[in-house]
């Protein structure tokens, strides 16, 4: 246990405490509430939180949905074994593919002059950019996030899907249950606690992502980019505002947990 506590203290508690304390300090080292008050009173910052939460929710829910469908298709009874190992390996790689390389991969395929964009235009005469699509907007960032959200969902939900025993399905069928009834009364309730946990994890994953968004569109007003502007500082340097923004992110995640815990308790009632 000691290595675990040492690890958690050094890499989780101490840095978080440092950020929390820093959020209440000013540039001269005195204590102040103004950084945190700015979170609420500055329209730019409010807008950034709204946009960040929206992007994280959309990609967490869409990622979870597609991830579950893919995982179920790949590992249910009757799917060939190689399919599962192929998906697992690919997901292991894709879930960790992010940041500037991912942004660049998307720019090179779906950017203004990306090969897919050009292909669609040259072969089918479809100019996706003239039809309102742009990789450099919120939609583009969500698309890029899904590239790692879906595989991550696959990896974390696969063990839970393994837990769905064939016997249950057979028992349900023997008693005259339809496929819909099986999922409504057996499959989903069993999976639900894991699904909820996975959505929270995906939310956090997208909420904190920085480099992918910066690489795609440096102008998007989301919280990690604002923190980056405060800390990277070729222009500004205001670490305490950055720490206050991070404090606000803690608060959002804490709020998510407050929603999650009662739901989780309710959803896993049957397990007790």
């Amino acid at each position, binding site marked *: 246990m000691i290595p675990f506590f040492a690890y958690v203290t050094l890499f989780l508690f101490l840095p978080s405490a440092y950020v929390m304390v820093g959020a209440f300090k000013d540039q001269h080292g005195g204590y102040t509430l103004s950084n945190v008050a700015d979170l609420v009173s500055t329209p730019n910052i409010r807008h950034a939180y709204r946009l960040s939460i929206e992007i994280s929710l959309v990609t967490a829910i869409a990622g979870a949905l597609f991830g579950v469908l893919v995982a179920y298709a790949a590992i249910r009874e009757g799917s060939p074994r190689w399919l599962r190992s192929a998906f697992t390996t690919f997901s292991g790689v894709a879930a960790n593919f992010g940041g500037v390389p991912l942004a660049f991969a998307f720019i090179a395929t779906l950017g203004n*002059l990306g090969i897919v964009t050009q292909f669609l235009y040259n072969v089918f005469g479809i100019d996706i950019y003239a039809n309102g699509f742009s990789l450099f907007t919120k939609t583009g960032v969500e698309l890029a996030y899904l590239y790692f959200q879906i595989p991550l969902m696959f990896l974390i939900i696969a063990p839970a899907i393994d837990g769905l025993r064939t016997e249950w399905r057979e028992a349900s069928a023997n008693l005259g249950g339809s496929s819909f009834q099986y999922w409504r009364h057996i499959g989903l309730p069993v999976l639900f606690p894991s699904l909820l946990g996975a959505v929270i994890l995906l939310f956090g994953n997208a909420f904190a992502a920085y480099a992918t968004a910066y690489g795609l569109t440096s102008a998007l007003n989301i919280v990690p980019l604002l923190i980056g502007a405060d800390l990277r500082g070729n*222009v500004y340097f205001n670490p305490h505002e950055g720490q206050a923004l991070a404090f606000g992110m803690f608060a959002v995640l804490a709020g998510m947990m407050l929603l999650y815990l009662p739901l989780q308790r309710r959803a896993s009632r049957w397990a007790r």
Partner: protein
Amino acid sequence: MEDFQEQEYEFLRRLEEEKVGRRSLLKKGAAAGVGLTVLSLSPAALAAKKKATADPPTIGRLAKLSDIVAAAKKEGKINTIALPPDWANYGEIMATFSKKYGISLTNDNPNGSSAEENAAIAALKGDPRAPDVVDVNPTFAGDGANAGLYSKYYTTNFRKVPRAMKDGRGFWVGDYWGAVSIGVSKSIVKNVPKTFADLLKPEYKGKVALNGSPLTSGSGRAGVFAAAISNGGSLSNVAPGIDWFVKLKSVGNWVPVPATPATVASGQTPIVIDWDYLNLAYGKEFPAAQWVTNIPADGVYGAHYAQAVNATAPHPWAARLWQEFLYSDQGQLLFLKGFSHPALFTDMVARKVVPNALIKALPAANLYAKVKFASPKQGNDAKVVIKDQWPAKMGS
């Protein structure tokens, strides 16, 4: 003449240190006079005194270069920070310095920012890995000087550096400057845009990028300054520059991807508003892109970077030798080879020590004639406006 200037610098330095107001100084005229007399004792005596205490010198011209070289070689190492090898030819500059003097050079965090450089000095105080020298933008140079992070050092050629590019107190000296330019890939864009007005034309849809967000990148902020100058704004009024970018976005020409060598080489950012030395370097590095660089006649904005020596440098002599090297003809020509204008450019042109080939590689000199530099105050004011307006107007 030169002694007079040295005295002036010393005088300003004392003024700063003692925080003496002009009025009280007049009263103390006699005393100050005595002080200056002491300081203007023969240079040899002063040098001898410095040597006796074995402190590294403050005034390069009064020290013997061979002494600095010897002491620096004895230290054997120098730490630099945040010098990207492909930026202003720093790769070659570092290698040349290291080879010439046999001093091993460690360049930490090559893509770091000015703020990180100052932070590293403060955080690594007393640590042998602390940066000995920094290359920061002028607003951060001013902050660092006021926070006591830098040591005063007047390089031998200090007096030849244009006045607007140096700190009278000797805490920092401008090393090179560049102007905002428009780089264009001729292999993708047939009709090369040359001004900010051109960039709004419909033929450049989805093609115009900046080096980075003006919130994080000094080059991005420079783009806003230049756009402001070209659209009825000024160095003290950058809002029209932001509005110009809003217009660029609304006509669909703006690509918010931060331009990098990768996006330039692959043609994803066919038009880039960036420092001239970076755009010109792209031209050399990626011949296939047929990259051409123009200085927009409607908005000529320039900025310099500044060298400073860490006040608690682990290798103080090597730090001073680095300064002497950068401000030597050899060091300055290496900057020029990286397409930036070195601080002593005018002086070197006058002395005819600049090879013609290097001059020809730059856009014509008359394009730079109108160049404007922001003062640290204008720079700081612009940050506030950009921080306030950019995310709201550009970041939906």
